[in-house]
Protein backbone atom coordinates (compact mmCIF):
# COMPACT_ATOMS: atom_id res chain seq x y z
CA UNK A 1 0.00 0.00 0.00
CA UNK A 2 1.05 3.58 -0.19
CA UNK A 3 3.56 5.30 1.96
CA UNK A 4 1.18 7.33 4.04
CA UNK A 5 -1.47 6.39 6.52
CA UNK A 6 -0.35 8.94 9.06
CA UNK A 7 -2.62 11.89 9.69
CA UNK A 8 0.51 14.09 9.60
CA UNK A 9 0.66 13.69 5.85
CA UNK A 10 -1.28 16.46 4.12
CA UNK A 11 -4.40 15.35 2.33
CA UNK A 12 -3.36 17.51 -0.60
CA UNK A 13 -0.04 19.03 -1.52
CA UNK A 14 0.48 21.02 -4.71
CA UNK A 15 3.74 22.78 -5.50
CA UNK A 16 4.27 25.02 -8.51
CA UNK A 17 1.64 23.23 -10.58
CA UNK A 18 1.29 24.50 -14.13
CA UNK A 19 -1.19 23.38 -16.75
CA UNK A 20 -1.20 24.85 -20.24
CA UNK A 21 -3.64 24.35 -23.06
CA UNK A 22 -1.83 25.60 -26.11
CA UNK A 23 -1.09 29.25 -25.48
CA UNK A 24 -3.50 29.43 -22.55
CA UNK A 25 -2.08 28.82 -19.08
CA UNK A 26 -5.06 27.52 -17.10
CA UNK A 27 -3.13 26.82 -13.89
CA UNK A 28 -0.12 28.99 -13.33
CA UNK A 29 2.22 27.94 -10.53
CA UNK A 30 -0.42 26.72 -8.08
CA UNK A 31 0.68 26.02 -4.50
CA UNK A 32 -1.87 24.49 -2.15
CA UNK A 33 -1.63 22.54 1.11
CA UNK A 34 -4.71 20.97 2.64
CA UNK A 35 -4.20 19.25 6.02
CA UNK A 36 -6.34 16.22 6.80
CA UNK A 37 -9.72 16.93 8.31
CA UNK A 38 -10.10 20.39 6.79
CA UNK A 39 -12.92 21.57 4.56
CA UNK A 40 -11.29 23.90 2.06
CA UNK A 41 -13.36 26.00 -0.30
CA UNK A 42 -11.64 26.77 -3.57
CA UNK A 43 -13.33 29.96 -4.58
CA UNK A 44 -13.05 31.64 -7.94
CA UNK A 45 -15.08 32.56 -11.01
CA UNK A 46 -15.25 30.56 -14.25
CA UNK A 47 -11.85 30.41 -15.85
CA UNK A 48 -9.91 30.69 -12.60
CA UNK A 49 -8.53 27.17 -13.07
CA UNK A 50 -10.63 25.38 -10.45
CA UNK A 51 -11.97 22.61 -12.67
CA UNK A 52 -8.60 22.05 -14.32
CA UNK A 53 -7.09 21.69 -10.85
CA UNK A 54 -9.77 19.18 -9.92
CA UNK A 55 -9.08 17.19 -13.07
CA UNK A 56 -5.37 17.12 -12.32
CA UNK A 57 -6.10 15.69 -8.88
CA UNK A 58 -7.83 12.68 -10.47
CA UNK A 59 -5.10 12.43 -13.14
CA UNK A 60 -7.65 13.10 -15.88
CA UNK A 61 -5.50 16.06 -16.76
CA UNK A 62 -1.73 15.91 -16.45
CA UNK A 63 0.23 18.84 -15.08
CA UNK A 64 2.94 20.28 -17.30
CA UNK A 65 5.05 21.30 -14.33
CA UNK A 66 5.05 20.97 -10.57
CA UNK A 67 4.37 18.36 -7.93
CA UNK A 68 1.04 16.95 -6.78
CA UNK A 69 0.64 14.59 -3.81
CA UNK A 70 -2.63 13.23 -2.50
CA UNK A 71 -2.51 11.57 0.94
CA UNK A 72 1.19 11.12 0.24
CA UNK A 73 0.69 9.50 -3.16
CA UNK A 74 2.45 11.07 -6.10
CA UNK A 75 0.15 12.09 -8.95
CA UNK A 76 -0.14 10.84 -11.65
CA UNK A 77 2.19 7.86 -11.00
CA UNK A 78 0.28 6.62 -7.93
CA UNK A 79 -3.06 8.05 -8.90
CA UNK A 80 -4.92 4.78 -8.61
CA UNK A 81 -3.96 4.45 -4.96
CA UNK A 82 -5.03 8.00 -4.33
CA UNK A 83 -8.35 7.45 -6.09
CA UNK A 84 -8.97 4.42 -3.91
CA UNK A 85 -8.80 6.68 -0.90
CA UNK A 86 -10.77 9.62 -2.22
CA UNK A 87 -14.22 10.28 -3.59
CA UNK A 88 -14.93 12.62 -6.47
CA UNK A 89 -18.17 14.51 -7.02
CA UNK A 90 -18.11 15.68 -10.63
CA UNK A 91 -19.46 18.94 -11.91
CA UNK A 92 -21.47 17.14 -14.58
CA UNK A 93 -24.30 14.92 -13.41
CA UNK A 94 -23.31 11.55 -14.87
CA UNK A 95 -25.81 9.37 -13.04
CA UNK A 96 -27.36 6.57 -15.06
CA UNK A 97 -30.87 7.88 -15.50
CA UNK A 98 -32.48 4.66 -16.59
CA UNK A 99 -31.34 2.92 -13.42
CA UNK A 100 -32.70 3.20 -9.90
CA UNK A 101 -31.03 4.98 -7.00
CA UNK A 102 -29.94 1.66 -5.54
CA UNK A 103 -28.58 0.40 -8.87
CA UNK A 104 -26.55 3.55 -9.38
CA UNK A 105 -24.98 3.13 -5.97
CA UNK A 106 -24.42 -0.60 -6.43
CA UNK A 107 -22.65 0.11 -9.70
CA UNK A 108 -20.18 2.41 -7.99
CA UNK A 109 -19.74 0.05 -5.06
CA UNK A 110 -18.20 -2.30 -7.64
CA UNK A 111 -16.10 0.40 -9.21
CA UNK A 112 -14.81 1.49 -5.80
CA UNK A 113 -14.31 -2.18 -4.90
CA UNK A 114 -16.28 -2.04 -1.70
CA UNK A 115 -15.86 -5.51 -0.12
CA UNK A 116 -18.80 -7.76 -1.01
CA UNK A 117 -20.01 -8.21 2.56
CA UNK A 118 -20.08 -4.47 3.15
CA UNK A 119 -21.77 -3.53 -0.10
CA UNK A 120 -25.36 -3.60 1.13
CA UNK A 121 -24.55 -1.65 4.25
CA UNK A 122 -22.54 0.94 2.30
CA UNK A 123 -25.42 1.48 -0.11
CA UNK A 124 -27.94 1.78 2.73
CA UNK A 125 -25.75 4.28 4.57
CA UNK A 126 -25.30 6.36 1.42
CA UNK A 127 -29.06 6.44 0.79
CA UNK A 128 -29.73 7.53 4.36
CA UNK A 129 -27.09 10.26 4.15
CA UNK A 130 -28.68 11.51 0.94
CA UNK A 131 -32.12 11.34 2.55
CA UNK A 132 -33.12 8.89 -0.14
CA UNK A 133 -33.65 5.96 2.22
CA UNK A 134 -37.11 5.22 0.88
CA UNK A 135 -36.29 5.85 -2.75
CA UNK A 136 -33.95 2.96 -3.51
CA UNK A 137 -36.26 1.68 -6.27
CA UNK A 138 -36.94 5.10 -7.80
CA UNK A 139 -35.49 5.71 -11.24
CA UNK A 140 -32.95 8.52 -11.23
CA UNK A 141 -34.92 10.08 -14.06
CA UNK A 142 -37.81 10.57 -11.63
CA UNK A 143 -35.74 12.34 -8.95
CA UNK A 144 -35.74 16.09 -8.41
CA UNK A 145 -32.63 18.11 -9.15
CA UNK A 146 -31.68 18.29 -5.48
CA UNK A 147 -32.15 14.56 -4.95
CA UNK A 148 -30.00 13.81 -7.97
CA UNK A 149 -27.23 16.02 -6.68
CA UNK A 150 -27.39 14.44 -3.23
CA UNK A 151 -27.15 11.03 -4.86
CA UNK A 152 -24.17 12.21 -6.90
CA UNK A 153 -22.42 13.26 -3.69
CA UNK A 154 -23.07 10.10 -1.67
CA UNK A 155 -22.09 7.96 -4.66
CA UNK A 156 -18.57 9.24 -4.04
CA UNK A 157 -18.71 8.24 -0.36
CA UNK A 158 -19.49 4.53 -0.73
CA UNK A 159 -15.92 3.45 0.03
CA UNK A 160 -15.55 5.80 3.00
CA UNK A 161 -12.97 8.07 1.41
CA UNK A 162 -10.55 10.07 3.51
CA UNK A 163 -10.65 12.91 1.01
CA UNK A 164 -13.60 14.15 -1.04
CA UNK A 165 -13.22 16.39 -4.08
CA UNK A 166 -16.31 18.31 -5.07
CA UNK A 167 -16.24 20.27 -8.28
CA UNK A 168 -18.97 22.91 -8.09
CA UNK A 169 -21.33 20.56 -6.24
CA UNK A 170 -24.26 22.96 -6.20
CA UNK A 171 -23.86 24.77 -9.51
CA UNK A 172 -27.14 25.47 -11.25
CA UNK A 173 -29.33 24.54 -8.28
CA UNK A 174 -31.99 26.65 -6.62
CA UNK A 175 -30.86 28.40 -3.40
CA UNK A 176 -33.16 26.20 -1.31
CA UNK A 177 -31.83 23.01 -2.87
CA UNK A 178 -28.27 24.24 -2.40
CA UNK A 179 -28.89 24.65 1.29
CA UNK A 180 -30.23 21.09 1.51
CA UNK A 181 -26.95 19.87 0.10
CA UNK A 182 -24.95 21.78 2.64
CA UNK A 183 -26.26 19.36 5.24
CA UNK A 184 -24.52 16.48 3.49
CA UNK A 185 -21.26 18.41 3.33
CA UNK A 186 -21.54 19.40 6.98
CA UNK A 187 -22.04 15.73 7.89
CA UNK A 188 -18.75 14.94 6.18
CA UNK A 189 -17.01 17.68 8.12
CA UNK A 190 -18.41 16.27 11.36
CA UNK A 191 -16.88 12.92 10.47
CA UNK A 192 -13.45 14.45 9.95
CA UNK A 193 -13.32 13.83 6.21
CA UNK A 194 -11.09 16.21 4.26
CA UNK A 195 -13.07 18.08 1.63
CA UNK A 196 -11.83 20.19 -1.25
CA UNK A 197 -14.82 21.97 -2.71
CA UNK A 198 -14.57 24.26 -5.68
CA UNK A 199 -17.33 26.79 -5.94
CA UNK A 200 -18.10 30.21 -7.23
CA UNK A 201 -20.84 30.78 -4.65
CA UNK A 202 -19.43 33.07 -1.99
CA UNK A 203 -22.05 32.18 0.60
CA UNK A 204 -21.42 28.50 0.13
CA UNK A 205 -17.69 28.89 0.62
CA UNK A 206 -18.20 31.11 3.65
CA UNK A 207 -20.69 28.83 5.39
CA UNK A 208 -19.14 25.45 4.67
CA UNK A 209 -15.40 25.98 4.62
CA UNK A 210 -12.95 25.91 7.49
CA UNK A 211 -10.66 27.74 5.15
CA UNK A 212 -11.05 29.45 1.82
CA UNK A 213 -8.49 29.66 -0.96
CA UNK A 214 -9.22 32.42 -3.43
CA UNK A 215 -8.16 31.40 -6.89
CA UNK A 216 -7.65 33.70 -9.83
CA UNK A 217 -5.77 33.34 -13.11
CA UNK A 218 -4.63 29.86 -12.23
CA UNK A 219 -3.16 30.44 -8.81
CA UNK A 220 -4.21 30.91 -5.20
CA UNK A 221 -4.10 34.61 -4.45
CA UNK A 222 -5.11 34.45 -0.79
CA UNK A 223 -5.90 31.81 1.77
CA UNK A 224 -7.35 31.78 5.29
CA UNK A 225 -10.45 31.30 7.38
CA UNK A 226 -13.39 33.33 6.09
CA UNK A 227 -13.38 35.41 9.31
CA UNK A 228 -9.65 36.17 9.10
CA UNK A 229 -9.85 37.13 5.46
CA UNK A 230 -12.79 39.40 6.08
CA UNK A 231 -11.05 41.05 9.04
CA UNK A 232 -7.81 41.44 7.08
CA UNK A 233 -9.23 42.93 3.91
CA UNK A 234 -12.66 44.37 4.69
CA UNK A 235 -12.61 45.19 8.40
CA UNK A 236 -15.78 44.95 10.44
CA UNK A 237 -18.18 47.15 8.54
CA UNK A 238 -19.02 48.10 5.00
CA UNK A 239 -20.96 51.25 4.24
CA UNK A 240 -22.79 51.71 0.97
CA UNK A 241 -23.12 55.30 -0.26
CA UNK A 242 -25.51 56.49 -2.92
CA UNK A 243 -23.87 59.13 -5.14
CA UNK A 244 -25.20 62.66 -5.17
CA UNK A 245 -25.24 65.19 -7.99
CA UNK A 246 -21.49 64.85 -8.62
CA UNK A 247 -21.94 61.27 -9.78
CA UNK A 248 -20.50 57.92 -8.80
CA UNK A 249 -17.00 58.55 -10.19
CA UNK A 250 -16.52 61.66 -8.07
CA UNK A 251 -17.84 59.90 -4.98
CA UNK A 252 -15.47 57.02 -5.49
CA UNK A 253 -12.51 59.32 -6.09
CA UNK A 254 -13.29 61.28 -2.95
CA UNK A 255 -13.34 58.23 -0.72
CA UNK A 256 -10.33 56.59 -2.35
CA UNK A 257 -8.47 59.86 -1.97
CA UNK A 258 -8.62 59.27 1.77
CA UNK A 259 -6.95 55.89 1.36
CA UNK A 260 -10.01 53.69 1.61
CA UNK A 261 -10.82 50.72 -0.59
CA UNK A 262 -14.13 50.91 -2.38
CA UNK A 263 -16.08 48.76 -4.74
CA UNK A 264 -19.15 49.46 -6.79
CA UNK A 265 -22.26 47.62 -5.76
CA UNK A 266 -24.77 48.41 -8.45
CA UNK A 267 -25.54 52.13 -8.27
CA UNK A 268 -23.83 52.55 -4.89
CA UNK A 269 -20.24 52.71 -3.71
CA UNK A 270 -19.30 50.33 -0.90
CA UNK A 271 -16.53 51.41 1.44
CA UNK A 272 -14.57 48.66 3.14
CA UNK A 273 -13.27 49.02 6.68
CA UNK A 274 -15.85 51.79 7.06
CA UNK A 275 -15.54 51.82 10.84
CA UNK A 276 -12.29 53.73 10.29
CA UNK A 277 -13.83 56.51 8.16
CA UNK A 278 -12.88 59.90 9.68
CA UNK A 279 -15.73 62.16 10.75
CA UNK A 280 -14.43 64.90 8.44
CA UNK A 281 -15.07 62.66 5.46
CA UNK A 282 -18.27 61.23 6.80
CA UNK A 283 -19.68 64.75 7.09
CA UNK A 284 -19.30 65.18 3.35
CA UNK A 285 -21.18 61.98 2.55
CA UNK A 286 -24.85 61.10 2.63
CA UNK A 287 -26.24 58.68 5.20
CA UNK A 288 -24.99 55.23 4.26
CA UNK A 289 -26.49 51.79 4.39
CA UNK A 290 -24.36 49.94 6.94
CA UNK A 291 -23.74 46.18 6.99
CA UNK A 292 -21.19 43.68 8.26
CA UNK A 293 -18.25 42.96 5.93
CA UNK A 294 -18.34 39.62 4.18
CA UNK A 295 -16.23 37.35 2.04
CA UNK A 296 -17.62 38.81 -1.16
CA UNK A 297 -16.04 42.15 -0.23
CA UNK A 298 -12.70 40.40 0.14
CA UNK A 299 -13.12 38.53 -3.09
CA UNK A 300 -13.98 41.56 -5.15
CA UNK A 301 -11.20 43.55 -3.53
CA UNK A 302 -8.60 40.95 -4.37
CA UNK A 303 -9.75 40.08 -7.83
CA UNK A 304 -11.79 42.96 -9.16
CA UNK A 305 -14.49 40.50 -10.12
CA UNK A 306 -17.91 39.91 -8.69
CA UNK A 307 -19.22 36.42 -8.17
CA UNK A 308 -22.54 34.94 -7.17
Amino acid sequence: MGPSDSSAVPALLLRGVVKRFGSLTAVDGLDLDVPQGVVLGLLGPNGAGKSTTMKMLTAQSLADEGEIRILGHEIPAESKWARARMGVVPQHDNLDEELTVEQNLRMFSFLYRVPRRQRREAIGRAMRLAQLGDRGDTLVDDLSGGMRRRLLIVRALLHRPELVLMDEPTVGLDPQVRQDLWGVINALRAEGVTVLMSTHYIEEAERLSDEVALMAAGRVVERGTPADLVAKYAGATVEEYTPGEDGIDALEALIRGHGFTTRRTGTTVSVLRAEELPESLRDRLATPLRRASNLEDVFVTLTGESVE
Partner: protein
Amino acid sequence: MTLRQTREDARPEIHARPGRFEADAVLGVVAREWILYGQSWRATTFAAVVEPTLYLLCFGFGMGALIGTLAGYSYIDFLGTGIVAVSVMFQSMMPAVINTFIKRRFLHTYEGILATPIDVRELVTGEALWLALRSGVYGCVPLLVAIGFGLRPGPGMLLVPFIAFLAGFAFALFGIWISAVITSVRSMDYVFSGLFTPLFLVAGTFFPLTELPDWVQSAAMVNPLYHAVELIRGVVFGGLAPVTALGHVAVLLAFIVLMWFLAGFQMRRRVVSSGGLPPAPPPSHAATRRRWAPSAARSSRARPPRSR
Protein backbone atom coordinates in the same frame (compact mmCIF):
# COMPACT_ATOMS: atom_id res chain seq x y z
CA MET B 1 -21.31 3.69 13.72
CA THR B 2 -19.44 6.59 12.16
CA LEU B 3 -17.66 6.92 8.88
CA ARG B 4 -14.35 7.12 10.66
CA GLN B 5 -14.84 3.97 12.71
CA THR B 6 -15.21 1.74 9.70
CA ARG B 7 -13.33 3.67 7.06
CA GLU B 8 -10.22 1.50 7.26
CA ASP B 9 -12.28 -1.70 6.86
CA ALA B 10 -14.25 -0.48 3.90
CA ARG B 11 -11.33 0.89 1.94
CA PRO B 12 -10.74 -0.93 -1.34
CA GLU B 13 -7.84 -3.33 -1.32
CA ILE B 14 -5.37 -2.29 -3.94
CA HIS B 15 -2.15 -4.19 -3.64
CA ALA B 16 -0.79 -3.82 -7.13
CA ARG B 17 2.08 -1.58 -8.06
CA PRO B 18 1.01 1.77 -9.46
CA GLY B 19 0.19 1.47 -13.13
CA ARG B 20 -0.26 -2.30 -12.98
CA PHE B 21 -3.21 -3.81 -14.79
CA GLU B 22 -5.72 -5.25 -12.30
CA ALA B 23 -8.42 -7.84 -12.98
CA ASP B 24 -10.54 -6.43 -10.12
CA ALA B 25 -10.77 -3.10 -11.89
CA VAL B 26 -11.84 -4.79 -15.12
CA LEU B 27 -14.47 -6.80 -13.26
CA GLY B 28 -15.80 -3.58 -11.73
CA VAL B 29 -16.46 -2.23 -15.23
CA VAL B 30 -18.07 -5.53 -16.27
CA ALA B 31 -20.25 -5.49 -13.15
CA ARG B 32 -21.40 -2.00 -14.07
CA GLU B 33 -22.45 -3.21 -17.52
CA TRP B 34 -24.19 -6.22 -15.98
CA ILE B 35 -26.34 -3.91 -13.86
CA LEU B 36 -27.18 -1.83 -16.93
CA TYR B 37 -28.00 -5.01 -18.82
CA GLY B 38 -30.63 -5.74 -16.17
CA GLN B 39 -32.57 -2.83 -17.63
CA SER B 40 -31.84 -3.39 -21.31
CA TRP B 41 -31.89 -7.16 -21.76
CA ARG B 42 -35.32 -7.25 -23.38
CA ALA B 43 -34.36 -4.88 -26.18
CA THR B 44 -30.97 -6.56 -26.64
CA THR B 45 -32.53 -10.01 -26.81
CA PHE B 46 -35.23 -8.82 -29.18
CA ALA B 47 -32.61 -7.48 -31.60
CA ALA B 48 -30.47 -10.60 -31.25
CA VAL B 49 -33.40 -12.88 -32.15
CA VAL B 50 -35.31 -10.86 -34.71
CA GLU B 51 -32.38 -9.74 -36.84
CA PRO B 52 -30.97 -13.18 -37.76
CA THR B 53 -34.47 -14.56 -38.15
CA LEU B 54 -35.29 -11.90 -40.73
CA TYR B 55 -32.00 -12.43 -42.54
CA LEU B 56 -32.56 -16.16 -42.69
CA LEU B 57 -36.17 -15.76 -43.75
CA CYS B 58 -35.46 -13.23 -46.49
CA PHE B 59 -32.09 -14.39 -47.78
CA GLY B 60 -32.38 -18.04 -46.84
CA PHE B 61 -35.72 -18.66 -48.47
CA GLY B 62 -35.56 -15.88 -51.05
CA MET B 63 -32.02 -16.41 -52.32
CA GLY B 64 -31.94 -20.06 -51.25
CA ALA B 65 -34.73 -20.88 -53.66
CA LEU B 66 -32.61 -19.50 -56.50
CA ILE B 67 -29.22 -20.74 -55.38
CA GLY B 68 -29.87 -24.20 -53.94
CA THR B 69 -26.33 -25.16 -52.89
CA LEU B 70 -23.21 -23.08 -52.48
CA ALA B 71 -19.63 -24.26 -51.86
CA GLY B 72 -21.01 -27.71 -51.15
CA TYR B 73 -23.58 -26.56 -48.56
CA SER B 74 -27.27 -25.84 -48.85
CA TYR B 75 -27.56 -22.07 -49.06
CA ILE B 76 -29.51 -21.81 -45.81
CA ASP B 77 -26.75 -23.74 -44.00
CA PHE B 78 -24.08 -21.57 -45.61
CA LEU B 79 -25.94 -18.42 -44.71
CA GLY B 80 -26.97 -19.56 -41.21
CA THR B 81 -23.37 -20.06 -40.12
CA GLY B 82 -22.33 -16.78 -41.74
CA ILE B 83 -25.10 -14.93 -39.94
CA VAL B 84 -23.75 -16.14 -36.58
CA ALA B 85 -20.49 -14.27 -37.22
CA VAL B 86 -22.25 -11.20 -38.59
CA SER B 87 -24.49 -11.15 -35.56
CA VAL B 88 -21.41 -11.24 -33.32
CA MET B 89 -19.97 -8.28 -35.19
CA PHE B 90 -23.19 -6.31 -34.86
CA GLN B 91 -23.58 -7.23 -31.19
CA SER B 92 -20.09 -6.08 -30.32
CA MET B 93 -18.76 -3.51 -32.77
CA MET B 94 -21.91 -1.40 -33.11
CA PRO B 95 -22.34 -0.74 -29.37
CA ALA B 96 -18.59 -0.37 -29.02
CA VAL B 97 -18.61 2.49 -31.53
CA ILE B 98 -21.90 4.16 -30.65
CA ASN B 99 -22.32 3.59 -26.91
CA THR B 100 -18.68 4.17 -26.09
CA PHE B 101 -18.70 7.44 -28.01
CA ILE B 102 -21.88 8.62 -26.28
CA LYS B 103 -20.62 7.61 -22.84
CA ARG B 104 -17.36 9.43 -23.40
CA ARG B 105 -18.59 12.49 -25.21
CA PHE B 106 -22.06 13.24 -23.87
CA LEU B 107 -22.85 11.28 -20.70
CA HIS B 108 -19.51 11.92 -18.95
CA THR B 109 -19.64 8.29 -17.86
CA TYR B 110 -15.91 7.75 -18.20
CA GLU B 111 -15.18 10.89 -16.21
CA GLY B 112 -17.00 9.18 -13.32
CA ILE B 113 -15.38 5.78 -13.79
CA LEU B 114 -11.87 7.18 -14.09
CA ALA B 115 -12.33 9.02 -10.82
CA THR B 116 -12.52 5.58 -9.15
CA PRO B 117 -9.48 3.29 -8.87
CA ILE B 118 -9.73 2.25 -12.52
CA ASP B 119 -7.28 3.17 -15.27
CA VAL B 120 -7.98 3.70 -18.95
CA ARG B 121 -6.65 0.30 -20.07
CA GLU B 122 -8.78 -1.45 -17.47
CA LEU B 123 -11.81 0.57 -18.55
CA VAL B 124 -11.30 -0.32 -22.21
CA THR B 125 -10.71 -3.97 -21.39
CA GLY B 126 -13.80 -4.13 -19.17
CA GLU B 127 -16.03 -2.55 -21.79
CA ALA B 128 -14.73 -4.92 -24.49
CA LEU B 129 -14.90 -7.95 -22.22
CA TRP B 130 -18.55 -7.29 -21.45
CA LEU B 131 -19.40 -6.99 -25.16
CA ALA B 132 -17.43 -10.16 -25.87
CA LEU B 133 -19.32 -12.07 -23.16
CA ARG B 134 -22.59 -10.80 -24.55
CA SER B 135 -21.53 -11.81 -28.05
CA GLY B 136 -20.57 -15.27 -26.81
CA VAL B 137 -24.11 -15.79 -25.55
CA TYR B 138 -26.07 -13.98 -28.23
CA GLY B 139 -23.91 -15.45 -30.98
CA CYS B 140 -25.68 -18.74 -30.25
CA VAL B 141 -29.10 -17.27 -30.93
CA PRO B 142 -28.78 -17.15 -34.74
CA LEU B 143 -27.39 -20.67 -34.58
CA LEU B 144 -30.54 -21.81 -32.80
CA VAL B 145 -32.62 -19.90 -35.33
CA ALA B 146 -30.68 -21.57 -38.15
CA ILE B 147 -31.35 -24.96 -36.55
CA GLY B 148 -35.01 -24.00 -36.62
CA PHE B 149 -34.56 -23.34 -40.33
CA GLY B 150 -33.07 -26.78 -40.91
CA LEU B 151 -29.37 -26.60 -39.95
CA ARG B 152 -28.35 -30.00 -38.58
CA PRO B 153 -27.11 -29.82 -34.95
CA GLY B 154 -23.67 -31.24 -34.26
CA PRO B 155 -21.15 -31.39 -31.37
CA GLY B 156 -18.89 -28.84 -33.08
CA MET B 157 -21.55 -26.24 -32.38
CA LEU B 158 -20.50 -26.29 -28.72
CA LEU B 159 -17.39 -24.36 -29.76
CA VAL B 160 -19.41 -21.56 -31.33
CA PRO B 161 -19.83 -19.53 -28.09
CA PHE B 162 -16.06 -19.50 -27.62
CA ILE B 163 -15.43 -18.37 -31.18
CA ALA B 164 -18.16 -15.77 -30.80
CA PHE B 165 -16.49 -14.55 -27.58
CA LEU B 166 -13.10 -14.27 -29.27
CA ALA B 167 -14.48 -12.51 -32.34
CA GLY B 168 -16.68 -10.33 -30.15
CA PHE B 169 -13.67 -9.24 -28.10
CA ALA B 170 -11.79 -8.36 -31.29
CA PHE B 171 -14.68 -6.37 -32.76
CA ALA B 172 -15.44 -4.63 -29.47
CA LEU B 173 -11.85 -3.40 -29.14
CA PHE B 174 -11.89 -2.37 -32.79
CA GLY B 175 -15.12 -0.43 -32.17
CA ILE B 176 -13.79 1.23 -29.02
CA TRP B 177 -10.70 2.34 -30.91
CA ILE B 178 -12.87 3.83 -33.66
CA SER B 179 -15.10 5.54 -31.09
CA ALA B 180 -12.02 7.20 -29.63
CA VAL B 181 -10.75 8.24 -33.06
CA ILE B 182 -13.93 9.94 -34.26
CA THR B 183 -14.73 13.38 -32.98
CA SER B 184 -18.41 13.77 -33.82
CA VAL B 185 -21.58 11.78 -34.34
CA ARG B 186 -21.45 12.75 -38.03
CA SER B 187 -18.18 10.84 -38.40
CA MET B 188 -20.12 7.65 -37.78
CA ASP B 189 -21.47 7.85 -41.34
CA TYR B 190 -17.95 7.23 -42.58
CA VAL B 191 -17.54 4.35 -40.16
CA PHE B 192 -20.75 2.58 -41.05
CA SER B 193 -20.59 3.10 -44.81
CA GLY B 194 -16.85 2.93 -45.29
CA LEU B 195 -15.92 0.28 -42.75
CA PHE B 196 -18.89 -1.74 -41.57
CA THR B 197 -20.31 -2.45 -45.01
CA PRO B 198 -17.11 -3.78 -46.62
CA LEU B 199 -16.26 -5.79 -43.48
CA PHE B 200 -19.73 -7.25 -43.51
CA LEU B 201 -19.85 -8.05 -47.23
CA VAL B 202 -16.28 -9.18 -47.88
CA ALA B 203 -16.12 -11.97 -45.35
CA GLY B 204 -17.69 -14.99 -47.03
CA THR B 205 -20.93 -14.46 -45.18
CA PHE B 206 -23.45 -14.38 -48.02
CA PHE B 207 -21.27 -15.85 -50.76
CA PRO B 208 -17.82 -17.46 -50.96
CA LEU B 209 -14.85 -15.15 -51.36
CA THR B 210 -13.63 -17.22 -54.29
CA GLU B 211 -16.14 -15.41 -56.50
CA LEU B 212 -14.41 -12.08 -55.83
CA PRO B 213 -11.29 -10.60 -57.54
CA ASP B 214 -7.93 -11.75 -56.18
CA TRP B 215 -7.09 -8.43 -54.55
CA VAL B 216 -10.39 -8.44 -52.65
CA GLN B 217 -9.70 -11.97 -51.49
CA SER B 218 -6.28 -10.87 -50.25
CA ALA B 219 -7.83 -7.90 -48.44
CA ALA B 220 -10.34 -10.21 -46.76
CA MET B 221 -7.45 -12.04 -45.06
CA VAL B 222 -7.13 -9.11 -42.64
CA ASN B 223 -10.87 -8.97 -42.04
CA PRO B 224 -11.50 -10.57 -38.64
CA LEU B 225 -15.05 -11.36 -39.70
CA TYR B 226 -13.75 -13.62 -42.45
CA HIS B 227 -11.74 -15.62 -39.91
CA ALA B 228 -14.70 -15.80 -37.56
CA VAL B 229 -16.95 -17.03 -40.39
CA GLU B 230 -14.41 -19.67 -41.43
CA LEU B 231 -13.97 -20.90 -37.87
CA ILE B 232 -17.71 -21.09 -37.19
CA ARG B 233 -18.41 -22.85 -40.48
CA GLY B 234 -15.49 -25.16 -39.83
CA VAL B 235 -16.61 -26.30 -36.39
CA VAL B 236 -20.29 -26.56 -37.33
CA PHE B 237 -19.76 -28.62 -40.49
CA GLY B 238 -16.45 -30.24 -39.49
CA GLY B 239 -13.56 -30.79 -41.84
CA LEU B 240 -11.48 -27.83 -40.65
CA ALA B 241 -7.82 -28.81 -40.43
CA PRO B 242 -6.36 -28.03 -36.97
CA VAL B 243 -3.56 -25.98 -38.53
CA THR B 244 -6.04 -23.90 -40.49
CA ALA B 245 -8.18 -23.43 -37.38
CA LEU B 246 -5.15 -22.33 -35.39
CA GLY B 247 -4.27 -19.91 -38.17
CA HIS B 248 -7.70 -18.29 -37.94
CA VAL B 249 -7.47 -18.14 -34.14
CA ALA B 250 -3.99 -16.66 -34.38
CA VAL B 251 -5.20 -13.90 -36.69
CA LEU B 252 -8.05 -13.07 -34.30
CA LEU B 253 -5.65 -13.04 -31.34
CA ALA B 254 -3.19 -10.82 -33.18
CA PHE B 255 -6.03 -8.47 -34.08
CA ILE B 256 -7.10 -8.40 -30.40
CA VAL B 257 -3.59 -7.51 -29.22
CA LEU B 258 -3.23 -4.77 -31.83
CA MET B 259 -6.65 -3.32 -31.10
CA TRP B 260 -6.13 -3.51 -27.34
CA PHE B 261 -3.08 -1.29 -27.63
CA LEU B 262 -4.69 1.07 -30.14
CA ALA B 263 -7.96 1.37 -28.20
CA GLY B 264 -6.17 1.98 -24.89
CA PHE B 265 -3.80 4.50 -26.45
CA GLN B 266 -6.46 6.44 -28.31
CA MET B 267 -8.96 6.39 -25.44
CA ARG B 268 -6.29 7.73 -23.11
CA ARG B 269 -5.64 10.58 -25.53
CA ARG B 270 -9.33 11.43 -25.40
CA VAL B 271 -10.03 11.17 -21.69
CA VAL B 272 -6.74 12.30 -20.19
CA SER B 273 -5.77 15.80 -21.09
CA SER B 274 -1.99 15.97 -21.36
CA GLY B 275 -1.67 19.13 -23.39
CA GLY B 276 -3.10 20.77 -26.46
CA LEU B 277 -6.64 21.97 -26.11
CA PRO B 278 -8.70 21.47 -22.96
CA PRO B 279 -11.51 18.91 -23.28
CA ALA B 280 -14.34 21.42 -22.90
CA PRO B 281 -13.22 24.96 -22.26
CA PRO B 282 -15.90 27.44 -21.26
CA PRO B 283 -16.58 29.74 -24.22
CA SER B 284 -15.43 32.81 -22.36
CA HIS B 285 -12.45 31.12 -20.74
CA ALA B 286 -9.71 33.17 -22.41
CA ALA B 287 -11.64 36.41 -22.12
CA THR B 288 -12.33 35.77 -18.45
CA ARG B 289 -8.68 35.14 -17.81
CA ARG B 290 -7.65 38.31 -19.57
CA ARG B 291 -10.00 40.31 -17.38
CA TRP B 292 -8.70 38.57 -14.32
CA ALA B 293 -5.01 38.72 -14.92
CA PRO B 294 -4.31 42.32 -13.86
CA SER B 295 -6.32 41.98 -10.65
CA ALA B 296 -4.67 38.71 -9.78
CA ALA B 297 -1.24 40.11 -10.42
CA ARG B 298 -2.08 43.03 -8.21
CA SER B 299 -3.32 40.84 -5.41
CA SER B 300 -0.39 38.44 -5.68
CA ARG B 301 1.75 41.25 -4.35
CA ALA B 302 -0.69 40.96 -1.58
CA ARG B 303 -0.84 43.09 1.44
CA PRO B 304 -3.91 44.45 3.15
CA PRO B 305 -5.41 47.33 1.18
CA ARG B 306 -4.92 49.83 3.92
CA SER B 307 -2.42 50.09 6.69
CA ARG B 308 -2.93 53.01 8.89
